[in-house]
């Protein structure tokens, strides 16, 4: 860094500076997430009325709907980080993409589980091949594939590039998959299943509170994951020695 003007990005895109900054932010995000979660749960479970048509089971949706938002948002962030890592070859972006995946997969699993819990009282079955749920299930598989690819490749730089290609190909396919699944669903089932009419003004507050809690939890987990990954990488680098060891010299004629 020889330039005088160190902008925010050049300063914090440096892994060491990032680690110092994240050490300060992570506890705040974690604490905020816990606090918002507590408030959100209070409003979801106690401080809001049961919905007219769905009874107490509607409370599951407060956790379900924002988790579904997060599952797609995480994939979007992962794709953005992958793009940055792929184009500008920045290791921090690689680490971010890798660290987002398990968080996104967790939110996606949470979406599927809460959806299933809602499905039993709401629809009368643990699993209904509703268009949205089916799309989320495919998204879940995409997360698993992405993580499997990272785990299969030893060398971090190559793993980052290869996984980024997989992530971006998946990302541009998401609208097509979503469209095809919607089309498939209208073909085979009445569309009325997908109407979640219960989401109205009365229940918006707990939904937003839990969404905010999820967002903070996302940042907290992201920073923790990234720091762990960076520490691991630094250890590997120190072990290997990051300097080239040889060069080409002319041999004296025999």
């Amino acid at each position, binding site marked *: 860094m020889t330039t005088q003007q160190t902008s925010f990005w050049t300063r914090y895109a440096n892994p060491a500076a990032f680690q110092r900054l994240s050490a300060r932010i992570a506890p705040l995000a974690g604490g905020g997430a816990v606090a918002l979660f507590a408030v959100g749960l209070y409003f979801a479970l106690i401080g809001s009325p049961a919905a007219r048509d769905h009874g107490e089971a509607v409370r599951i949706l407060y956790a379900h709907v924002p988790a579904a938002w997060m599952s797609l948002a995480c994939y979007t962030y992962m794709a953005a980080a992958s793009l940055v890592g792929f184009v500008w070859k920045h290791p921090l972006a690689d680490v971010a993409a890798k660290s987002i995946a398990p968080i996104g997969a967790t939110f996606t699993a949470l979406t599927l589980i809460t959806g299933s819990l809602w499905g039993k009282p709401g629809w009368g079955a643990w699993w209904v091949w509703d268009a949205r749920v089916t799309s989320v299930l495919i998204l879940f598989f995409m997360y698993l*594939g992405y993580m499997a690819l990272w785990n299969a490749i030893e060398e971090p730089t190559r793993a980052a590039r290869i996984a980024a290609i997989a992530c971006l190909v998946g990302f541009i396919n998401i609208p097509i998959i979503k469209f095809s699944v919607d*089309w498939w669903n209208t073909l085979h089932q009445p569309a009325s299943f997908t109407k979640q009419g219960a989401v109205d003004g009365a229940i918006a507050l707990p939904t937003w509170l839990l969404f905010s809690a999820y967002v903070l939890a996302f940042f907290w987990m992201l920073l923790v994951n990234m720091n762990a990954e960076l520490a691991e990488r630094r250890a590997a680098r120190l072990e290997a020695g990051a300097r080239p060891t040889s060069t080409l010299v002319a041999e004296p004629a025999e």
Partner: protein
Amino acid sequence: MSALVSVFSRDVELAFRAGGGAAQGAVFFGLVTVMFVFGTGPEPGALARVAAPILWTGALLASLLSLDRVFQADFEDGSLDILVQRTETLEFLVLAKAFAHWVGAVLPLLVITPVLAAMLNVEAMWPLLASLLVGSPALSLIGAIGAALTFPLRRANVLVTILIGPLFAPVVIFGTGAAADGALGAGFGAPPLMLLAAVSLFSLIVAPLAGAAAIRFNLQ
């Protein structure tokens, strides 16, 4: 151009040689169909209704069987280095390899499809064949991306399946949809078949770009 033709014809020749995989894939396709029938029972009316989904799934599984080897076989014997070193536009190499896979591994499946379809009491043969013909190139193209991502890895076979399985969803949906639509008398301009063609064309753009990038980084 002649280099790409030589790669294509070599791959097709290898696929159709004894033990090359073309015949094995077709046998596998037949066996999968038989297993499905064991699962559903032999009642003709029921079979006709699930015939197109069975044949689409069978063709998909049979093409997955050989997809992981598209680049891995060349990687293992050193010829991938040769092809890449010789080729200035890797994107075209990916296209040539994917097309060779389609001819060597998918076309044999399409050839025996009428036989299997007749055994399943399918009456609307042409819509089914049209859907497979239009949609199956997407299987080879999307599969080539998975193959390019994983060829240096030992467990490439399973990984390819996990990676590209979700991307196959639109192909299966529109493919079976087009077959069903055609059975009801829809023409060749009907939406599902057009959507299926769109997915294949989209793969034709994405696969060479993603595949070539993956090969570059995997050989680095």
